[in-house]
C-alpha cells in the first residue's frame, strides 16, 4: 500500500517535472500561510496564488505522467515519489519564512515563471502550449502582486526594509539554479519542448531590477554555488515538507474527496 513511484529517465518527462514540481512545491509553501496571513485580504490573495500554481502543477504532472514509459497520474507523481525524485529548484522548498521572505520569493519565482510560461506557449507539445497559455495570465498577476508588496516593504518602515533586505540576502544563493543548464535542459531546447532556462535570465534580470529599484533595495551579489534540486538533490527542508504534504495520501492510499 502507498507504494512509492519513480518516473523514468526520459529527458522530456524530467523537464516537465522540473517545472511542475517548482509550481507544486511553491504552491505548498504559499498554502502554509492560509489562516496565518497578516490580514484576511492577503490570506485570500495568497490562497488564490497557491491554487493557481497547484493548477499549473496538476496539468504539468498529468502531462509528464502520460509521457512517462510507465503511465503515472498526477496524484501518484505529486504524493507518492521519494524526495530525490522531486525535481524542483531548491528555492521553492525553502520554509515560508516571514511575510517579507514569502513575498520576495514569490517575486523571484513569478519573474522566472512568467518568461518560462511565455516561451512554453510555443512548445512543440500542443498540450504544454495550451497549459502555458492559461498559466501566463495567472503568473502575470502573481508577479504584480508580489512586486507591490516588495516595493511597499522595501521602501516602507525601518523594520520592513530590514526584513526585506534580509529576505533577499537569504534567497539570492538559490537563484542561480533557476538559470542553470544541463543535458535535460539542452534536450528540451533542441526538441522545442521548452526553453533552456539560461534564456530566461535577461527577462528575469530586467523585471527584478525594475522592482528592486522602485523598492530602493540593493540587489545582492551573485554567489557561485549552484544547487541541484532539479536533479533531486534537495535541502534538509524538503523531507519535512513532503512528510506533511504526503501524509494523507500515504495514510489513506487513493483517498479522494
Amino acid at each position: 500500500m502507498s507504494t512509492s513511484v519513480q518516473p523514468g529517465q526520459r529527458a522530456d518527462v524530467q523537464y516537465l517535472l522540473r517545472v511542475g514540481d517548482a509550481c507544486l512545491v511553491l504552491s505548498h509553501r504559499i498554502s502554509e500561510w492560509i489562516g496565518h496571513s497578516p490580514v484576511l485580504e492577503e490570506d485570500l490573495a495568497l490562497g488564490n496564488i497557491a491554487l493557481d500554481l497547484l493548477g499549473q502543477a496538476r496539468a504539468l504532472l498529468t502531462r509528464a505522467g502520460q509521457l512517462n514509459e510507465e503511465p503515472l497520474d498526477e496524484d501518484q507523481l505529486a504524493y507518492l515519489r521519494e524526495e530525490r525524485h522531486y525535481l524542483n529548484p531548491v528555492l521553492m522548498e525553502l520554509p515560508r519564512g516571514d511575510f517579507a521572505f514569502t513575498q520576495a520569493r514569490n517575486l523571484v519565482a513569478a519573474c522566472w515563471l512568467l518568461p518560462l510560461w511565455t516561451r512554453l506557449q510555443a512548445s512543440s507539445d500542443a498540450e504544454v502550449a495550451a497549459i502555458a497559455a492559461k498559466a501566463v495570465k495567472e503568473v502575470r498577476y502573481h508577479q504584480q502582486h508580489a512586486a507591490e508588496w516588495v516595493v511597499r516593504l522595501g521602501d516602507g518602515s525601518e523594520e520592513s526594509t530590514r526584513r526585506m533586505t534580509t529576505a533577499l540576502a537569504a534567497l539570492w544563493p538559490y537563484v542561480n539554479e533557476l538559470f542553470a543548464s544541463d543535458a535535460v535542459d539542452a534536450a528540451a531546447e533542441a526538441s522545442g519542448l521548452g526553453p533552456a532556462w539560461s534564456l530566461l535570465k535577461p527577462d528575469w534580470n530586467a523585471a527584478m531590477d525594475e522592482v528592486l529599484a522602485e523598492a530602493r533595495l540593493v540587489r545582492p551579489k551573485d554567489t557561485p554555488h549552484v544547487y541541484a534540486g532539479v536533479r533531486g538533490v534537495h535541502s534538509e527542508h524538503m523531507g519535512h515538507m513532503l512528510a506533511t504534504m504526503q501524509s494523507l495520501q500515504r495514510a489513506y492510499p487513493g483517498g479522494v474527496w
Partner: protein
Amino acid sequence: MSINQTTGANEWPLWEVFVRNKAGLDHKHCGSLHAPDAKMALQMARDVYTRRQEGVSIWVVPSSAIVASDPGEKSMMFDPMEDKVYRHPTFYDLPASLDHM
C-alpha cells in the same frame, strides 16, 4: 511610497468595493476591505470579491469619502414620499423597444 496609516497605529484604511459583472451596466456595491493604499485595495478587491468570475471591472473608493444620510433622519428624509403615488410612471405605456427602464 509608504504604508498609509491614516486610521490608527496598526489599522489600514477601509475601502468600499464596487464590481460590475459581465452582463451588468452598473458597478454594484459588494462589500468593503482594508488596504494600505488604492493600488493594493484594487488588487485585494480582485482577490476577495471576484474569485468566482463575478466581475469584469472593479472600483474602490475610500470609505471616508462617502457621505451618508443620517439614519436618525430617515422619517424626515423618506417618509414624505410614501403617498405620492403620482410620481410613479405607472400611468404610461412604454414602447417595447425601450431598454433599461
